[in-house]
């Protein structure tokens, strides 16, 4: 007997799916913005060996880049309450995303800053720029432009990885999919749809970030 595909459940759950998508995007955008901010801070302290932040950042980066995201999430959600830090699902999910992306961004941005040609730094120095001025006016923008594709990829990877947050009942897209599937028992259709949505989101984020990167590069001609 051939399997009968049935996608008629979609309208009933459209609102729920929309909320799941919004949750997932929220995690990604929030994680991306704060993660990159953390990454810039981390890259600065590692690059200039600002104590004690450089050491702390190094431990943090190594820890988060060498452990599974799911375990990081469990540690935050189930572990921290033992230390008196209680977070509800969405807070734990956000924190895990921010910390995870921050660790990867630190390494990506550091590589970009490190790739600043020595001559640029000497030119800035010879013009009497302080280290801080050199950073903001000479290093940061070219470095971010250079690593933008890598940051974009990381953001997409993290967006896809955020599905793991369903494990602590954060109501993102995968959580919603699991819920729907438990109701309609249409596993294939439900996860096929979910796959398609993730795929669409990934393509969209990639295109959007690519456009932002191209705009930033093109903008120079206008300014």
């Amino acid at each position: 007997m051939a399997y009968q595909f049935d996608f008629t459940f979609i309208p009933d759950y459209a609102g729920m799916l929309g909320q799941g998508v919004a949750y997932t995007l929220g995690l990604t955008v929030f994680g991306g913005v704060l993660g990159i901010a953390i990454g810039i801070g981390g890259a600065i302290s590692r690059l200039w060996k600002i104590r004690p932040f450089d050491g702390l950042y190094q431990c943090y980066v190594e820890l988060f880049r060498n452990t599974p995201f799911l375990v990081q999430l469990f540690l935050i959600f189930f572990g921290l309450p033992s230390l008196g830090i209680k977070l509800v699902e969405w807070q734990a999910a956000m924190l895990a995303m921010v910390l995870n992306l921050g660790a990867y961004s630190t390494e990506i941005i550091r590589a970009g800053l490190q790739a600043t040609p020595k001559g640029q730094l000497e030119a800035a120095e010879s013009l009497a720029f302080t280290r801080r001025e050199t950073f903001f006016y000479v290093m940061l923008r070219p470095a971010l432009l250079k690593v933008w594709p890598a940051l974009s990829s990381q953001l997409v990877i993290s967006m896809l990885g955020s599905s793991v947050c369903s494990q602590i009942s954060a109501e993102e897209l995968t959580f919603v999919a699991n819920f729907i599937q438990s109701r309609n028992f249409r596993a294939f259709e439900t996860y096929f749809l979910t796959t398609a949505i993730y795929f669409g989101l990934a393509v969209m984020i990639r295109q959007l970030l690519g456009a932002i990167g191209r705009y930033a590069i093109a903008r120079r001609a206008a300014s």
Partner: protein
Amino acid sequence: MPLVQTNRLHKFYGTNHVLKGIKLDVEEGEVVTIIGRSGSGKSTLLRTLNGLESIDDGTIEVDGTALVAGEGDLRALRQKVGMVFQQFNLFPHLSAGQNVMLAPQVVKGTNKREAAEIAREMLARVGLDQKFDAFPDQLSGGQQQRVAIARALAMSPKVLLCDEITSALDPELVNEVLTVVRRLASEGMTLIMVTHEMRFAREVSDKLVFMHEGRVHESGHPQEMFAQPATPEFANFIRSLH
């Protein structure tokens, strides 16, 4: 009193004694060219003059701002000493105009409109007023180097250091840069330069400094030095040029 004055200047890279007690006086408006073999310490000397390299002993004084064995107000010194590099080193994310505007804005707090005015003026001085909005990668090497000169001039330095600024250029682009330097010299700019363009050096320099193994081996008026080398090392150096 000379505008630039160094005394007993010593510099080590590890155990490599690169500058061995340099004494150099440069008067205001003077054009001084430093020549010598590769590795004799020419670049290092220039780089100590605006604090790009620290010094291990001795003093540097530029227009009243002193550096004693590395201690002193580097920011003040650097504002008085402009530098142009062999590799141009323009900021790639900024237009020619913005490259020139940046330091006055950031370091001197000049407002944007004023900085733009300065930039136009400086770009005009190097013959590039048409290229205000061009980006470095849209300019030839010679044009980039002229923008770099304008960028240094925008800080109104007392003295301009030029370290082999035509060495990275294709031969046909060398002259446009030398023309700019010649004009600066005739306008009374104090210049200290390292160059391999010997004919040019003899033409524009008031003083020639021959460096050899970290010392000022011989110095004086270019025509006289070339006519009558005082040391066998300089005589050898001249011979090696042909």
